[in-house]
């Protein structure tokens, strides 16, 4: 019947509107649900998500050792030539020549933080860091050398 349909339509509309209003009202009366981060104020306690991609870093352990073999897989994976791996040849104790990392050049100003280099790395030598405060006055400081001076490849990483 027409009247029945008409009234049930109004009832349904009222119910769905009330459902929406209950949700916003729920948030309104509970200030604890606010998810805003008041950034410069909470810098000391700010915790970024684990999956956050701030910059590419190369972790070094306490003995200043890294896991980069200088294979240049990251350089090949990079879509916009952000990474330049400079390699050298070192002599092993058996007097054999072996390829090793000399300088890992990282252009932060060109990086889109896509993470393809981290995926391509076979030894897990590079990671995505959490730091996001990258603004500087001099653009040239954005070209970084990721391996620390005097660092060596960790034993057993091939």
């Amino acid at each position, binding site marked *: 019947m027409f009247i029945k349909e008409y009234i049930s339509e109004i009832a349904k509309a009222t119910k769905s509107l009330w459902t*929406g*209003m209950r949700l*916003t*009202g729920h*948030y*309104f009366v509970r200030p604890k*649900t*606010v*998810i*805003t981060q008041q950034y410069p104020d909470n810098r000391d306690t700010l915790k970024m998500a684990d999956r956050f991609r701030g910059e590419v870093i190369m972790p070094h352990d306490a003995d200043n050792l890294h896991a980069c073999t200088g294979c240049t897989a990251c350089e090949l994976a990079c879509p916009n030539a952000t990474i330049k791996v400079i390699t050298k040849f070192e002599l092993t104790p058996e007097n054999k020549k072996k390829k090793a990392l000399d300088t890992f050049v990282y252009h932060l100003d060109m990086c889109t933080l896509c993470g393809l280099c981290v995926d391509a790395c076979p030894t897990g030598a590079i990671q995505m860091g959490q730091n996001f405060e990258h603004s500087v006055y001099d653009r040239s400081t954005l070209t970084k050398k990721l391996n620390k001076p005097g660092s060596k490849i960790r034993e057993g990483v091939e």
Partner: protein
Amino acid sequence: MYSLHAITHSIQDWLSARLSPVWVLMIESIIVIVLAIGLFAVLGLILVWLERKVAAHMQIRLGPNRVGPAGIFQTSADTLKLILKEGLTPDGADKFLFNFAPFVVMIVAMLALAPIAFANGFQIWDINIGVLYVSAISSLSVIGILIAGWASNNKYSLLGAMRSGAQIVSYELSAGLSILTIVVLTGSLQISDIVHAQQNGWWLFKGHIPVVIAFIIFIIAATAETNRAPFDLAEAESELTAGFHTEYSGMKFALFFLAEYINIFIVCAIGATLFLGGWMPFHIGDWAQFNHVMDYIPSSIWFFGKTFFLIFLIMWFRWTFPRLRVDQLLTLEWKYLLPISLFNLLLVTVIAIMNWHF
């Protein structure tokens, strides 16, 4: 009950003892103008801040919190910025009408303030057709919006203005009919009579379900008449940039913005007066003791409390509901609200004739 009659009458007597009637009228007008403009400025600042805070908390945000405690001075800073900005007039615009439109909208909002009773004995103009006057004046604001849309010489402005026209003209009907239910129950169009008729209980409680329905229809129509979401097609940001005030900048834009908030205040004040008793404290029938305790709360607090409750309700709508399409907007009015309010008016008339209300 404490009344402000004493203060207003003593000012009147003090002035008329010293000056000729013409000067008394002039000085009283100046007092009223200063009070009205002061109220406008304060209301504009507070309502915008309130809107932003309510919106933020409903969207799990914090809202303005940098300028002053809880961001209370944010709106003052924004107003200062708008005053300093250039009020640009586009080359292709109709210069006179373009600059005239903000003032039309503003003056209409100011005129509608006249018959509202802010407290016991505190009313600018208690005319015997108060309710009719307000509904007549508030329908004039569409002219200002149409002028603004037309004079801007911009397709978005024109579309927004036309939508606004269609919307205000249609929703005035159901707003008027729901106002009529209270007029039928009271038997008077005068605001002070309507408030006094609610001495033994507000109409919302005295008038049974039909008045509750009328109240809901009035709130919906008021939201539509003030061009607020979910009925904000006139200035739908995602479709029309800013609707009829796309081309306005600086203080001219601020006048539109201010008028919008003043209109919200006025429709909510009318709603509070008609359905929630205006400045009348919460009274229950003949419980003399209870009513006497309620009288200790000043009448202005009752009035502003009720008005701000309705304003909050309208803000709650805005930050919950999605925008309607034009056809949905007109369907809601002509197929649902208008038939229901016509039938409802009939019911209320029967109640009033048979004296079934409390």
